[in-house]
């Protein structure tokens, strides 16, 4: 991160690095601030004395020697300052969803043993019994002059690590520990494209968000980062901030297009559209091609644990079978075992939080992603954990969902398993109808749309809803009780 940032600041110091609701920052300013943050992490003097020594730890808080820090920050410029500063100081940073309510955030912090949290959120800074310790980073930048000269000097060797929490909610909370240097390998080949303006649609606490940050800095481009980061906010950014490139999930795109159409606005041309995080419904791909005829559409397949795995830009769903290990391609990173994609030797994590590093061996690892070979393509069928067992029949939610979403009267839909005593589970669908659609008519249409699928795949519970459940900009498809 810091190496990429130093390169951008040297090549294009006055280029705007990031635009947020709070303002904008050039690459030179960002690097200067990162050094100020790093200097604060090396400062042995106390940054804060506990205001309530009677109930709390009476010792003052010093940042020198800190090895791990949590970041709770909505503003992407601050996120970049803090991530780069922590990387420079060799401190492992871990971001949390910035608008998480206090009651949810404290157990999350405790789960990863984060005792020091950098945040500007007043409700956290004003907690009466602050455990962990919350620190406001703003004073670090009040007088950055003592460290500003470092900005033009040779950057220190970056050794920082970053902890990325996974979006899954089942089981114990997990976070993947990554090395910035290994992560940066995936953007090694990115050429400077300073005219590009990338929308930050993902949260920068997500792996895909980190990838966007790195890509933008490597391209010496501009990051446009609204907050909140809902699709409607992304649409506003597209219309107001001359965004030229967008990386987002299919679910995000679906909502952004629906929002644009309901507002009746004309969408600007885009240079680059990157899709990832979920299998891509063919009708959405076609819709994006129609809506943005001049855009290059590419798909990335990556995971928080395994890092960036495949990127394809031929406008077709899935990826070519030539990426699979074979006699012609014995060194490939991918193979299919019982319908599940397995990977090896990716620029993945060092290990899970709280556990030792995973040895960097050649072992194949299951991804949990189900795939099928269709002609010369490997197409995604969904997550292993999303499969619904209906009376012994394995049902994949995605084909059902795609059939429903393709209906003109449906704005959005999600398909998931719902527990049932008679069959173990039934297929359930939540549908957001286009305004003015009759409910019973919509039910008939859904039924007709799935008629070609096996009977066990037919949704037995169809609910009309105002909005579908998403997490990390992805549609939630896990089993419900």
């Amino acid at each position, binding site marked *: 991160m810091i190496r990429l940032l130093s390169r951008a600041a040297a090549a294009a110091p006055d280029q705007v690095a990031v635009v947020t609701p709070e303002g904008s920052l050039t690459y030179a300013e960002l690097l200067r601030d990162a050094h100020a943050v790093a200097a604060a992490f090396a400062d042995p003097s106390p940054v804060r004395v506990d205001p309530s020594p009677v109930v709390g730890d009476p010792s003052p808080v010093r940042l020198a020697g800190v090895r791990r820090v949590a970041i709770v920050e909505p503003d992407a410029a601050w996120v970049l300052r803090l991530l780069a500063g922590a990387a420079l100081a060799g401190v492992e940073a871990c971001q949390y969803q910035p608008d998480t309510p206090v009651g949810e955030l404290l157990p999350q912090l405790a789960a990863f043993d984060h005792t020091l949290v950098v945040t500007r959120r007043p409700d956290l800074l004003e907690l009466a019994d602050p455990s962990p310790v919350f620190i406001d980073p703003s004073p670090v930048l009040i007088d950055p002059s003592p460290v500003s000269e470092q900005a033009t000097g040779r950057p220190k060797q970056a050794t920082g690590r970053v902890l990325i929490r996974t979006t899954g909610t089942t089981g114990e909370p997990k976070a993947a520990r990554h090395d910035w240097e290994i992560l940066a390998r995936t953007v090694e080949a990115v050429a400077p494209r300073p005219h590009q303006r990338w929308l930050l649609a993902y949260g920068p606490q997500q792996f895909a968000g980190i990838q966007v940050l790195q890509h933008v800095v490597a391209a010496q481009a501009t990051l446009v980062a609204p907050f909140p980061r809902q699709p409607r906010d992304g649409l506003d950014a597209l219309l107001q901030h001359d965004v030229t490139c967008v990386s987002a999930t299919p679910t995000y795109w679906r909502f952004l297009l629906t929002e644009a159409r309901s507002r009746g606005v004309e969408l600007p041309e885009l240079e680059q559209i990157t899709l990832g995080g979920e299998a891509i419904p063919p009708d959405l791909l076609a819709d994006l091609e129609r809506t943005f005829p001049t855009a290059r559409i590419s798909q990335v397949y990556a995971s928080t644990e395994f890092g960036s795995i495949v990127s394809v830009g031929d406008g077709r769903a899935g990826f070519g079978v030539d990426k699979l290990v074979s006699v012609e391609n014995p060194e490939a990173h991918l193979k299919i075992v019982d319908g599940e994609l397995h990977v090896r030797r990716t620029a993945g994590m060092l290990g899970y939080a709280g556990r030792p590093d995973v040895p960097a061996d050649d072992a194949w690892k299951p991804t949990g992603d189900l795939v099928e070979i269709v002609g010369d393509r490997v197409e995604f069928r969904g997550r292993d954990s999303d499969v619904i067992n209906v009376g012994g029949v394995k049902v994949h939610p995605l084909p059902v969902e795609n059939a429903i979403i393709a209906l003109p009267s449906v704005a959005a839909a999600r398909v998931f398993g*719902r527990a049932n005593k008679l069959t173990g589970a039934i297929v*359930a669908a939540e549908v957001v109808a286009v305004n003015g659609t009759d409910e019973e008519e919509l039910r008939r249409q859904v039924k007709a749309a799935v008629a070609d699928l096996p009977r066990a795949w*037919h949704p037995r*519970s169809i609910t009309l809803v105002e909005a579908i459940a998403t997490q990390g900009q992805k549609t939630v498809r896990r089993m419900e009780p």
Partner: protein
Amino acid sequence: MTDQDKTLAVITQFLTRADKSTDDVSPTTGLYGDGLELDSLEAAELSAMLEDEFGNDPFSSGDELPQTVGDILAFYEVAAPA
């Protein structure tokens, strides 16, 4: 609308959506076989509709599966507070 009428309304709505006849549905009508001819998937669908409407359903809550329309009606008459 009495509890019995509400329950019958859900059953009728289910039958309509499933393209089954709603004629001659009475408490003695069997749910499977010669009656409404529900298979396990359809029974699961009806149980989900009843659960959505009333918060519980006789297919999941009872010790024995209901056999007739009357069994479903009876489940809610017993279960519901007077």
